[in-house]
């Protein structure tokens, strides 16, 4: 028990130290709090985006989904990684070049419409909450496995939720975007390191990836029918053939259309995730944003490929292990909760220290994503609403305080929502409750912000009215669909992944309404800002001149540093 908490404590102290260091180097302005001064380098930003993106759904959920449904689960990982291609091709550079602080800010300025800005703020908050709650659920599940310690009046599950959300909220408040960036980059490196370590341990133990896939595929896939002690294994039906499902064949979770719909939902959802897209505003130039995305695609690919392998290995290895601690977690060698797959492998190969390391990694994954989400929420409330509508005369301290207050409110809201949500009710109906809930956020993002961003950047004919109507309809339809999909029994999986239908529908609606209304005047100036590269060249030239001259630009509030040195 001591080693468990030692590793966790070290991780928390490092995160705290990073946040404090970032605070010392911060200028205490809203821009520095929200965008780290727009000076984050390509590799650092790529690692931070990966840390932001690799949440509980990825670290625990992808391995869990592969563990539970085999090949269909692997498509989660593929979809998550593929989502950055549209970002690279269509969005990253122009979004950064337009130079705003958030997606609502970008859309509001692009269409010169306060209505668009406010609708985008509401949609952003919905997406953030939909993404935040599963992270907190993941925190609760991980803590539950990690320890039975509970705060007075709370279960271990609820205690984990409180610990992960409150601690992260505190770190975000003191570290801002700079501290969160450094923490996310560091945390992603730790997560990747854990997967690499487990992979190496598996190989050293004689694990053969291909042989394991072949062996698992040779028998029908069996999964527990519940979490109760007396639960039994039942065969999973293949939704394409109607025969018993097998590990390396499609159909354990999705039918043919469902497979296609999942991919489209994940691919188009990524571009609409506010916490991920906000990170591009921290890049110094549009070109840096573009190259950052290339690095993200490479790093995230390595991560997900490893996660899929580990999920496969868990299915293969755990059922052959005869260890006492596994008995309460499994039914005839199959885990009752698929999210425990990675944690169980950590314990198999590293004992208590291994379990502690993976658990700490899982909590770090959750914290880094929660951090990004809270910051995105903070920017949206603080900059897009407070500074523009509530108190337009706000000085920098007031703007900063508004953003920090938003972080606190969203932290509490996420914690309460996750406590009310009972993950046990979803077991058996979805492969991984965390990954499935995150898919909800992707679905709403893909039906709202992604079409709005794509058309705002690439269509001169699109108008504020078109985008506003499209986002409202997309948000309502998307939320309805995923709610029915998650809560309804026996409904089509298309309801959980509605972007394949709603996305094109929203684009068509936006364009139809736009044809009946007039685009904003002075589009040429906006086009020059988004698609021109003069800003990049100027920035690069200034940086080069500064490097050659050995000069340093320092924000005013750190002038103490200048004087001392």
């Amino acid at each position, binding site marked *: 028990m001591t080693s468990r908490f030692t590793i966790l404590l070290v991780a928390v102290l490092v995160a705290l130290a990073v946040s404090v260091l970032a605070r010392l180097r911060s200028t205490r302005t*809203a*821009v520095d709090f929200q965008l780290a001064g727009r*000076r984050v380098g390509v590799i650092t930003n790529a690692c931070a985006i990966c840390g932001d993106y690799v949440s509980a759904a990825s670290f625990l959920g992808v391995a869990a989904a592969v563990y539970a449904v085999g*090949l269909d689960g*692997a*498509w989660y990982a*593929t979809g998550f990684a*593929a989502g*950055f*291609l*549209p970002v*690279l*091709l269509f969005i990253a*550079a122009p979004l950064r070049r337009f*130079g705003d602080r958030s997606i609502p800010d970008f859309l509001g300025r692009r269409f010169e419409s306060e209505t668009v800005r406010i609708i985008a703020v509401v949609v952003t908050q919905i997406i953030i909450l939909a993404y935040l709650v599963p992270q907190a659920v993941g925190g609760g599940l991980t803590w539950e496995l990690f320890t039975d310690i509970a705060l007075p009046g709370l279960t271990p599950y609820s205690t984990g939720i409180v610990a992960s959300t409150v601690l992260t909220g505190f770190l975000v408040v003191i570290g801002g975007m700079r501290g969160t960036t450094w923490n996310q980059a560091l945390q992603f490196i730790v997560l990747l390191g854990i997967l690499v370590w487990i992979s190496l341990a598996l190989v050293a133990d004689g694990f*053969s990836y*291909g042989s*394991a*896939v*072949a*062996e698992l595929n040779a028998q029908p896939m069996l999964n527990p029918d519940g979490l109760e002690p007396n639960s039994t294994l039942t065969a999973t039906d293949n939704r394409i053939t109607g025969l018993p499902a097998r590990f*390396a*064949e499609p159909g354990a979770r999705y039918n*043919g259309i469902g*497979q296609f719909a999942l*991919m*489209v939902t994940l691919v188009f959802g990524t571009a609409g995730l506010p916490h991920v897209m906000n990170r591009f505003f921290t890049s*110094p*130039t549009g070109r840096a944003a573009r*190259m950052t*995305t*290339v690095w993200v*695609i490479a790093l995230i*690919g*390595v991560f997900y490929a490893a996660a899929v*392998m580990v999920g*496969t290995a868990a299915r293969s290895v755990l059922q052959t292990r005869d260890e006492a601690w596994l008995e309460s977690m499994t039914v005839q060698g199959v885990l009752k909760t698929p999210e425990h797959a990675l944690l169980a492998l950590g314990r198999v190969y590293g004992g208590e220290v291994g379990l502690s390391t993976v658990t700490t990694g899982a909590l770090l994954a959750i914290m880094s994503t929660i951090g990004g989400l809270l910051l995105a929420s903070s920017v949206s409330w603080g900059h897009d609403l407070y500074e523009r509508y509530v108190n337009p005369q706000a000085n*920098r301290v007031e703007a900063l305080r508004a953003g920090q207050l938003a972080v606190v409110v969203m932290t509490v809201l996420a914690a309460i929502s996750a406590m009310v949500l009972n993950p046990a009710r979803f077991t058996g109906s979805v492969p991984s409750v965390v990954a499935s809930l995150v898919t909800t956020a992707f679905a709403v993002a893909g039906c709202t912000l992604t079409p709005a961003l794509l058309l705002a950047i690439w269509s001169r004919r699109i108008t504020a009215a078109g985008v506003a109507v499209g986002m409202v309809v997309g948000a309502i339809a998307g939320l309805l669909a995923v709610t029915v999909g998650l809560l309804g029994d026996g409904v089509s999986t298309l309801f959980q992944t509605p972007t394949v239908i709603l996305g094109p529908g929203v684009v068509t609606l936006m364009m139809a309404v736009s044809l009946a209304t007039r685009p904003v005047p002075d589009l040429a100036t906006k*086009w*020059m800002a988004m*698609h*021109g*590269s*003069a800003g990049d*060249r*100027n*920035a690069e*030239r*200034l*940086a*080069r*001149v*500064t490097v050659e001259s*050995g*000069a*340093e*630009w320092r924000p*005013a509030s750190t*002038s103490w540093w*200048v004087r001392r040195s």
Partner: protein
Amino acid sequence: MRWAGKPCTTIDDMSGGQRTNHIRLADGSPPQSIPSARHRRPTAAHLATSEPALDPRFDSSADGYASFSDADTPAEVDAVFRLQRRIAVAHFVTFMFVTLGVSVAIVTLDWAATSRVFGGFSPGFVLAAIGLYFFFVIVAVAAASLANSIEDRMMGAGSLPSEPPRS
């Protein structure tokens, strides 16, 4: 005069609005304050006071502002926009065709799920679990290189030289 310390990396960092940046000089003179909002660029007068021959690429214009005088023309931007859009769409179609094609092939073709290529992997599993990630990286590198190259070649023709004259 030698300037000291680490470099600033972006001019756009100055877009935040209300704050002031300092340029620290290594010769012991006091730090120079420069208003840092986008619309409050360092004035020519200010720069002249702090460093008369700061850099030949600064343009002290008649309106009292000094900046790098690099700009795109609308024609350049329009041409680049059209080309970038065509390239982005072409890469995207390729990406979607392959990604969804693999998904469809696995569902519809028996051999993709049941045959074995190496080490026990089926073609479908090896593509979904490993192969597509390599494909994504290849597409990303190709698209980014092409986009950067287009911007380099088609924009900034009338701008200042990228390297300063060496003395």
